């Protein structure tokens, strides 16, 4: 695969504090690379630097093998025109939808006939046929962001940057646009760098994910690795591994280790050796709740614990239930299961999870 964009030793210092410190990464032709991280991790700053809108304190960025940050004047504009960015807000210019979508083509000096054709194509792609003459002030949030998407894609950039473009949309619009954007990117073979704080969005859109925390890449990999094998405790927490425990390996044999957590032993698939201190993580959706009385029955789960429910947080059709065993185990179950089990705060519950569901956090 051909590398489109490469960055190395990128850093940015504001008032003596380093807010971005990235060793290196590259973006391959046609892939969607996602930078996932909490607010303030430096994601937007990184995109602005890659899009030549802000200068880094140190580092180089190569587009198609050519170093671009040192360029000036006309050369700089020519290179900048091979990229485009979609921001969190639509940032539409006052006027018609057509004026907005045509903007990038106009500044590139396309002939009017070509502009007209491309704008019509772009509006079709984002399903806004017939919206050309509408004034942008009459658009809904979802429509406005679609116009912004069409405006960025119409110039057919070699790399499209997307800075949390769905963050301000309601869930329905967000879900729909995520799918649309992914399809458009794949259909056109477009290379994209996407930043988001939303792990679902990252999983949906990313071919690869890099987790950014405090300006540094703390983990990189394919989505399943990021979500199931987080490299550090902070990544684990960020990707939704809500149950994180510190323990000691008390015995290890045949790839299975016993880890003692607050006096209770759990089984973990691991090659760790006896006496080692480890941090393990468990996703709430990997935990099953049963009646306390049924906990002894034969089941494939290696880990079975009994405890008391300490909290229930209902979230629409699902609920997070925390059971103290004595260490708190957070489980995600459906509201229906919750009703069938008749659980309430203070009642006893059985907790089960497989040894394969428990992940040793690599940094520990």
């Amino acid at each position, binding site marked *: 695969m051909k590398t489109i964009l490469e960055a190395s030793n990128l850093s940015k210092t504001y008032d003596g504090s380093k807010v971005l410190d990235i060793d290196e990464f590259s973006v391959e032709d046609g892939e969607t690379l996602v930078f996932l991280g909490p607010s303030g991790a430096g994601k937007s700053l990184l995109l602005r630097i890659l*899009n030549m809108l802000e200068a880094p304190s140190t580092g180089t960025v190569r587009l198609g093998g050519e170093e671009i940050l040192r360029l000036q004047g006309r050369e700089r504009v020519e290179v900048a025109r091979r990229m*485009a*960015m979609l*921001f969190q807000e639509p940032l539409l210019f*006052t*006027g018609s939808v057509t004026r907005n979508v045509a*903007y990038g083509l106009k500044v590139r000096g396309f002939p*009017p006939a070509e502009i007209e054709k491309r704008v019509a194509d772009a509006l079709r792609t984002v399903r806004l046929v017939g919206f050309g003459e509408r004034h942008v002030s009459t658009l809904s949030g979802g429509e406005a962001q679609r116009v912004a998407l069409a405006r960025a894609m119409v110039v057919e950039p070699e790399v499209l940057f997307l800075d949390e473009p769905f963050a301000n949309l309601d869930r329905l619009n967000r879900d729909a646009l995520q799918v649309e954007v992914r399809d458009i990117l794949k259909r056109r073979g477009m290379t994209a760098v996407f930043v988001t704080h939303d792990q679902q969005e990252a999983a949906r859109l990313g071919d690869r994910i890099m987790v950014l925390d405090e300006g540094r890449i703390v983990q990189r990999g394919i989505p399943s690795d990021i979500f199931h094998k987080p490299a550090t405790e902070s990544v684990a927490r960020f990707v939704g591994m809500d149950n994180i425990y510190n323990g000691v390996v008390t015995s290890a044999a045949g790839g299975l280790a016993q880890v003692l957590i607050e006096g209770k032993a759990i089984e973990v698939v691991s090659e760790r050796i006896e006496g080692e201190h480890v941090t393990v993580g468990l996703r709430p959706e990997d935990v099953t709740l049963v009646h306390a009385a049924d906990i002894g029955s034969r089941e494939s789960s290696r880990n079975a614990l009994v405890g008391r429910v300490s909290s229930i947080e209902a979230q629409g059709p699902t609920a997070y239930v925390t059971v103290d065993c004595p260490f708190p185990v957070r489980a995600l179950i459906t509201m229906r299961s919750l009703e069938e089990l008749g659980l309430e705060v203070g009642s006893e519950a059985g907790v089960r999870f497989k040894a394969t569901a428990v992940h040793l956090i690599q940094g520990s």
Partner: protein
Amino acid sequence: MSTILNAFKEAFLLIVRFNPDFYRVLLLSLIVSGTATVIGALIGIPLGVALSESSFRGRRVLLTLVHAFMGLPPVVVGLFTLLVIMRSGPLGSLELYYTPTAMVIVQVILATPIIAGFTHASMEGVDPRLGLQAMSLGATRWQAAWVKMREARAGLVAAVIAGLGRVMAEVGAVLIVGGNLKGQTRVLTTDIVMQTRMANYELALAEGIVLILLVVIINIFLTRLQAEKGMREIEKRVTGYPA
């Protein structure tokens, strides 16, 4: 009360009778203030945009100066200009003394800071991310600034209106450098002052009414620019593309 009513009648007659003396004064007012406003806008708008859009050494000092000059006392500007252009002054050889050109010069000095200051303020009111968005779509710095100017157009038109308002109403400075010479440098404001001194109150007030009418008509025309259509026309001419 009858003076005021008579003044309205007089104003009407002044307009319909096509008195050549009066029309000469009216035309000179328009030419001097119009020219000064156009020149002031040609300098003031780019200056205000530059103060907002670019960072250069001395930007803050220049901005402070612009703000201070927005309140320049016209009489002082007139006096200063007079000392520069009078026969013994540094530009005395140009013989600008008591000419419409001298009047345009003082009015440009008065209008430019106002136009620049208001332009700067309205550009600062535009979301700076719109400029970044334009650049991320391939705009040069100036094309991005143009996008922001379009967004700030109501403010820019207001800046020009304020500049025009200042110079159309000006009397002290133009009197000093122009001298109110009949048929040569007499404009509406200086004529009003003279007629008042000569106790021709009805005529003075009539001219005042005409002056106000003139300002209102020009402002209606300029305000139309704030509407989308007018701006589109300008953009079409500047960029060669219909908006």
